[in-house]
């Protein structure tokens, strides 16, 4: 992410009350992971697998934390098994922060399938989402995702792209 966007994302997480973050760093949100890891108000639990990361976030919520899972949109496919089992099966809220690889503007061939799959998969998992391409909208979008996640006891997602990641 652009540095300014990463800062806005961190501010959004904190204003949303997020105090527990898991995830697997990717090229776009690497700097957000670093900001979160350095923040003393957020407990950071990195994983090697987004599915395990989702389970950890869900367990943290059961213990009173407000969790978010930060990952590339390819990670949603890995996490989907546990989103279905845990959240569709029991009702647990987790904010999902997804890099929208494969969005219009993508430069990498390998990102294209990630873009093709992510929105239908979010729909299949009944996860509402906002696509945020303007850094100025990141902060309030994250707060709104957290609000509906708590109200519906199910994940909500932010798809990050556009001017949050490209300076063209």
């Amino acid at each position, binding site marked *: 992410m652009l540095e300014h966007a990463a800062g806005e994302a961190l501010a959004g997480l904190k204003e949303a009350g997020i105090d*527990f973050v*898991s995830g697997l760093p990717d090229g776009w949100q690497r700097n957000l992971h670093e900001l979160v890891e350095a923040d003393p108000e957020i*407990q950071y*639990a*990195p*994983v*090697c*697998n987004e*599915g*395990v*990361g*989702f*389970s*950890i*976030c*869900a*367990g*943290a*919520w*059961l*213990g*009173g*934390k407000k*969790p978010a899972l930060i990952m590339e949109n390819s990670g949603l496919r890995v996490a989907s*098994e*546990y989103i279905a*089992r*845990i959240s569709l*099966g*029991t*009702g*647990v809220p987790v904010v999902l922060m997804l890099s929208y690889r494969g969005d219009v503007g993508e430069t990498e061939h390998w990102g294209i399938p990630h873009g093709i799959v992510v929105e239908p998969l979010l729909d299949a998992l009944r996860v509402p989402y906002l696509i945020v391409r303007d850094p100025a909208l990141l902060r309030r979008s994250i*707060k709104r995702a957290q*609000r509906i996640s*708590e*109200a519906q*006891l199910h994940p909500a997602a932010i798809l990050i792209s556009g001017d949050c990641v490209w300076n063209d």
Partner: protein
Amino acid sequence: MNDRANDRNATTPPSELTDGLDRYDWLGRLAARLPEDALVMATYIGAVSFEWAHHTGEHPRSAHLGQMGDVIGLAVGLALALPHRKVMCLDGDGSVLMELGQLVALGQHCPANLVVFVVDNGCYESIGWGPGGRRLSATASSTDLAAMAAAAGVPHTANVTTFDELDAEMELAFTRNVCSFVNVRTLPGHARVAPRQTDGFEDKYRFVRYVEQVEGTQILHLARQDRQLMKGQNPNH
């Protein structure tokens, strides 16, 4: 070494499945030894859940919320969120095998307040019997889960095959603060109690309400705006 190491026949009921502890009996012993202020992450379907709930009287400190591949992950998150409270995880061999990344996370984050007990019966018992007998899991032949947990960085791991060993591991688990993984060789055998009649949503609410009570905190925020309006505060933020 795993003493089941030389039999790789995946369908014939093998002689090695005659070793191990009776599940109902050892779960009862574990339930009796569990500290009153501990929390438990367990499965919510299958014989382990039914028998554990029977032994614990459906006590709300047990979260019957895990399923294949996510029980240890849930327990790691719970233990990290409540580091002052003992958390016990009750999982099965098939579930651990489905998502081995959980062992990596367990070793990586190593919550000192978390102990994992695995019901390792070496087979996929919940799916029933076929003409060739039970379907064996990898732990019946080639895989040593405790060794894998140790390799992932879990500081205390053990394979339990006798009640004396179980007693010793329970003593360690509940009297000290060390992240532990205890694999209990367990005899196959169908559940001795009736299936539970609650789903994951009811189990979730029951557990969360209990955590709210014992921790003195609020986890559920289902009507935040109404609460703020009643206090005369502006909910728009």
